[in-house]
């Protein structure tokens, strides 16, 4: 028998809603409270597959207590599954992302077997069921129990080019939901149910994003032997082909011909991803013995290090070949950094070319933009300031909460203009 887990009362020491007022102003918080008051009497039940690790758990950990604080009766439950189930859902994840993996009829059987067990065990009590990602998607089979109950499916992953076998399998469940939510327009699919666009967000109070003392930044630069006097180009990302770290080195070398700069490539390794070891080896080989290329392997939980490296950078680069929403870009923009990033995934949602950063499509384009920014610090500064303001208005946690509250209200109103 599977045990499900209720996460509703586990909120150790997170920020209060009014702590965000200094970033977004009192009116934004007032609006959240007003929207929350219109949801009085409604219970929101979030369900996902894990309470720790991963972006969804990170978001729910911060968002659920804030929703409860403003008066929305919000709960969070977690499905259970065995090792086999999670191996299958990992395959789903890879295949939905357009990566290669092998899947067969037995995998789908494993998925359905665990789904049926969760359907039996899971206590469904929300007025609005908020189901996150593919793992618990099959719980929609319980929709028949209460016709008034609303069901939402939140897709946190890039499904712009999904494997059709997996997508068609999931689609049979998705179309039974009242609505779906995607993080970027590029991820939307042809569906018979409404699809909403809700971007993810960053938390300005988290270790990765909060202000740091200059001494903390200096200490971290010293720790990694980085020369703080020399212009720094920084990419923070996993060592993954899709992040194109080798292309970043090529771009750096084009810039280096004209500007004496240094490159910082910092990211974690994924122990469950043998490919990352291969990519790292290629990056090291490409870097050769250039003392101005710093390849930093950061252990999990290096949030303050990442924060410091972003804050110390003169230009942040994100030369991804494919990207989800690109929250590392959001983090750099929030720190008012001039960013050069590929026009892929959710990045164009965050950067308007030459307004709030520079978009690129090639190594040469990236190098040209970096040179422009290093040669024009005033222009770079203005882009950074625009970028921070854009994030402040559109990509902080409070905007994310607002969108969810509006979404819940939209379930009970079908008009394009809703008078609250």
């Amino acid at each position: 028998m599977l045990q499900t887990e209720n996460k509703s009362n586990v909120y150790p020491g997170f920020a209060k809603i009014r702590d965000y007022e200094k970033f977004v102003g009192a009116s934004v918080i007032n609006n959240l409270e007003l929207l929350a008051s219109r949801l009085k009497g409604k219970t929101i039940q979030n369900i996902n597959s894990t309470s720790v690790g991963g972006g969804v758990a990170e978001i729910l950990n911060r968002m659920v207590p804030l929703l409860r604080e403003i008066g929305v009766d919000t709960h969070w439950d977690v499905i259970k599954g065995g090792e086999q189930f999670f191996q299958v859902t990992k395959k789903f994840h890879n295949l939905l992302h357009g990566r290669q993996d092998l899947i067969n009829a037995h995998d789908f059987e494993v998925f359905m077997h665990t789904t049926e067990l969760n359907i039996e065990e899971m206590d469904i009590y929300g007025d609005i069921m908020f189901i996150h990602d593919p793992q618990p998607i099959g719980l929609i089979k319980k929709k028949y129990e209460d016709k008034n109950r609303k069901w939402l499916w939140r897709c946190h992953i890039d499904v712009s080019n999904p494997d059709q076998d997996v997508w068609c399998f999931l689609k049979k469940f998705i179309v039974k939901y009242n609505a779906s939510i995607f993080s970027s327009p590029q991820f939307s699919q042809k569906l018979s149910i409404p699809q909403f666009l809700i971007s993810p967000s960053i938390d300005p109070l988290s270790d990765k994003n909060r202000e740091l003392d200059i001494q903390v930044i200096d200490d971290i630069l010293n720790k990694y032997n980085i020369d703080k006097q020399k212009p720094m180009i920084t990419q923070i990302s996993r060592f993954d082909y899709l992040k194109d770290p080798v292309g970043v080195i090529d771009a750096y070398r084009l810039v280096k011909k004209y500007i004496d700069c240094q490159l910082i490539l910092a990211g974690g390794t994924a122990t469950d991803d043998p490919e990352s070891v291969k990519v790292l080896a290629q990056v090291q080989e490409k870097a050769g013995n250039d003392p101005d290329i710093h390849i930093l392997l950061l252990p999990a939980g290096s949030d303050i290090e990442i924060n410091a490296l972003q804050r110390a950078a003169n230009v942040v680069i994100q030369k991804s070949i494919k990207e989800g929403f690109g929250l590392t870009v959001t983090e750099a923009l929030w720190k008012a950094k001039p960013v050069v990033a590929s026009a892929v995934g959710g990045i164009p949602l965050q950067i308007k070319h030459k307004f709030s950063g520079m978009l690129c499509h090639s190594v040469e384009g990236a190098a040209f933009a970096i040179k422009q920014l290093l040669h024009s610090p005033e222009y770079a500064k203005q882009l950074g300031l625009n970028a921070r303001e854009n994030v402040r208005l559109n990509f902080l946690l409070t905007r994310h909460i607002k969108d969810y509250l509006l979404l819940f209200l939209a379930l009970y109103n079908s008009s394009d203009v809703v008078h609250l």
Partner: protein
Amino acid sequence: MSTLLIAKQPFCFYSRLILQELTGLKAVNLSQLLKYIREVPDAVIYYHTHRFLQQHIYLNPEPPNDFAYWVDDVLGVHDLAENLASIDTIQFFDINSLRQKIIYTIEQYLKANPRSIKRKANISEVFHFIKAISFVFRTGFVAYNLEEFISILKIITIESIYFHIFESRLRLGNTKTNDFSYWLGTSVNELELAKRLAKLDPYTHTMEDLRKSIVRLAYAYTQT
């Protein structure tokens, strides 16, 4: 001028928030863009002609609409982009008239430049049509005369000013002018000030500049 004249009807400040709904419609070239601009609901046209203004309120003046931005930045058809960006939105009293002007602008361009139809966006840069669902609510601020009106304008949210200047007029068709001018003219009989505010082109201000301009005009009026 009558700053203490009690209004026939008080001015209730409203505000609005929007939720974005994906339509699933995508354009890769000008003919598809034109096709969907003809077909989509008003709420989609509204979203794409005002999104930049709302999401980038710090970047003005002259925020491009999404169509102009995409045609310029992605398709590289700069002259059409300029024509689209310079459509004088303030001249239109409803979304459909604005839509017809956009359609006419693209049609004329395609007639004169048929080869431009071959320009295509790459897969990561297609145009996605999105709908704005607006949630309108009272802010609790109410003005009973011109002085109170000015005081509230100084502190009300940008979203509220946005609602009364842009959305109420164009999307909800509440008045032929902006809500502020309408109220000043009809409820407090300040016709001259109403006329001055109606002459403002809000599309060429940042939202904060717009607030300052309105306050400045109204304050100067009370001093005459």
